[in-house]
């Protein structure tokens, strides 16, 4: 990712106020955003938490999507300029469906700008962006985009907001109370943890590509929380994919307790990975059977459902749950597998501050019992609560643990 280009002043257009909705889960933020988008007579663009639905699905690159479905050449130029300002013009020639979470959020915003919308209503989209990028996006909408921005962001207090953004705080509902995470439940360690080492590991998505990831040396100790930090597209998810064995290494070795393993041949032997998008990782017909299918005993089922606030919809099909609960269920399912290490990719997306605190408490309790956790999160609050060791990635290069 290249560096963001210079930005206009923070107060470029005070007349075009942005709207920020803050509030707990189930307080009606999504409904308000949707109403905001629909109130503009077909000139609004709603980006749902499931960002992939913002794309037409007919284009193999973001550029093709913008060329085919932008309102005019001018709006397409606006969208390209927006990407340029964020230093993310390179994603133009990549498939929007296979981008990383943060890149996908930016791509969806670019598509919304290209569509010539009057109002862009983004739900949970901002939570996938790193802190600096969030401020820049808000500033771009204030200064150089024709569209007004309305968004929900549980992490809005982590970055500087322009004065022209009007913040609306929403009260909790009965549903909020019903789906609270129970941090008093202590999650058990399911399996023995091991020391993981990566030595001179290099990997790429295609054999003829330049290396997307390079890890000269990385040592991960059990009983510790690690945070993979770095800007969007830095290679955080790629590192996790290599560790779990979803991406083949071109060079180097991965050692578990000093013994070299072939993670590609035996995926997820050491660690279980919870993806950012919950929708691809829920396979069963009900919430209960989803957790049971991961090998958790029925005696532990109740406690894990309470820990993640998914006890009341236990007989519901996972696909019909709202995004917030689908995300929690995917986390609960990951912790139901018997592994010494858990890797969580943006576990707090869509979660309010109470849920984030409860999740952090559960994770801390797990590490005390000796479990190793690797977290990818752009939430400063969450990583502070976890007291995580930072592993920084820049341009696909990892600077060690």
């Amino acid at each position, binding site marked *: 990712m290249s560096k963001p280009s210079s930005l206009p002043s923070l107060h470029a257009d005070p007349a075009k106020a942005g709207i920020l909705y803050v509030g707990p889960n189930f307080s009606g933020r999504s409904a308000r955003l949707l109403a905001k*988008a*629909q109130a503009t007579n*077909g000139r*609004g*663009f*709603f980006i*749902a938490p*499931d960002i*992939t*639905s*913002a*794309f*037409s*699905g*007919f*284009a*193999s*690159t973001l550029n*093709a999507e913008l*060329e*085919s*479905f*932008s*309102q*005019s*050449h001018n709006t*397409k130029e606006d969208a390209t300029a927006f990407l340029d300002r964020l230093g993310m013009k390179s994603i133009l020639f990549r*498939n929007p*469906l*296979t981008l990383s979470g943060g890149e996908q959020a930016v791509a969806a915003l670019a598509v919304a700008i290209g*569509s010539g*919308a009057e109002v862009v209503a983004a739900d949970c989209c901002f939570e996938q962006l790193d802190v600096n990028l969030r401020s820049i996006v808000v500033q771009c909408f204030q200064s150089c985009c024709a569209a007004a921005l309305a968004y929900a962001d549980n992490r809005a207090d982590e970055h500087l907001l322009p004065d022209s953004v009007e913040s609306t705080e929403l009260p909790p509902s009965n549903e909020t109370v019903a789906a609270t995470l129970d941090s008093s439940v202590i999650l058990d360690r399911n399996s023995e943890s091991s020391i993981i080492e990566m030595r001179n590991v290099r990997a790429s998505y295609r054999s*003829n590509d330049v290396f997307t990831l390079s890890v000269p040396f990385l040592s991960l100790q059990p009983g510790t929380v690690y945070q993979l930090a770095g800007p969007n597209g830095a290679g955080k998810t790629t590192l996790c*994919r290599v560790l*779990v*064995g*979803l991406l083949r290494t071109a060079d180097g070795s991965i050692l578990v307790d000093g013994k070299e393993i072939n993670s590609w*041949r*035996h*995926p*997820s*032997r050491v660690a*279980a*990975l*919870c*993806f950012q998008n919950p*929708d*691809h*990782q*829920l*396979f069963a*017909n009900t919430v209960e059977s989803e957790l049971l*299918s*991961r090998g958790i005993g029925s005696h532990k089922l109740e406690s894990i459902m309470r820990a993640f606030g998914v006890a009341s919809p236990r007989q519901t*099909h996972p*696909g019909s749950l709202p995004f917030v609960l689908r995300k929690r269920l995917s986390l609960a*399912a*990951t912790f139901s*597998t018997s*592994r010494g290490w858990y890797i969580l990719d943006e576990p707090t997306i869509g979660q309010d501050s109470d849920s984030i605190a409860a999740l952090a408490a559960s994770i801390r309790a797990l590490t005390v019992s000796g479990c190793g956790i690797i977290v990818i999160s752009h939430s400063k609050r969450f990583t502070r609560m976890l007291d995580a060791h930072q592993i920084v990635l820049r341009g696909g290069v990892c600077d060690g643990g």
Partner: protein
Amino acid sequence: MISSPQVRLISGLLIVSGLLLTRQVLMLSAACVGLIAYLLIAGHFATLRRNLLAIAPIAVILFAVHYLSSYTSTIQSNPPTQTLLRLFGIMLTFSYMATMFLGYDSLDRFVQLGLRGEHLVIAISATSTLPLMQTTAVQIIDARFAAGLVRSRSIFSTATQLPYILRPLLTQALRLAIARSDTWHQRGMMQRLESNLSPVRMEHRLHPVELVAILLPLAWVTLIVGREFL
């Protein structure tokens, strides 16, 4: 490499009709070499690898049987050779059709072919469903690997995952379809397609390579017709 959809259509139709007409190993081999050469020159290495994985085993068996049968009997009276020839022809037909007609970025091509409105949407949907499903299926398989629900990457382990993949694939497809219909509505895509507002450039001048792409299959089909029927 061949950007004009008209050229793709003409040359594709010529090749497919030639493949359906011929029963000769030599002509099928020429078509196979032509396909490999095109994919190599155009740099579609992933497509080439996929095609070769499908075609190569049949081709090897075909030539082995053909070589053996040439000592014992004539090709026409040899049923295994006939079956293999038919199979080889079908595989080549699919490969050419996929190379010439299908593609993820098909919107421009269909617009250039004159499709508009509902017909355009049907055509795009028909050709983009498979790659979309493929992308989602890969993500689901990855998620099952990541959750430790698949023990190894052996062919057997992967094959047994099919029933588990279908359910989330269907759920995901349905949810995405509903969400996409909202997206299409809010972006006014149907109106844009119906009123032909898509800013796709229509101008195209015939490139010498495209001329070759028509003339070569034409000569090949003429040769087949000459050898088979005259």
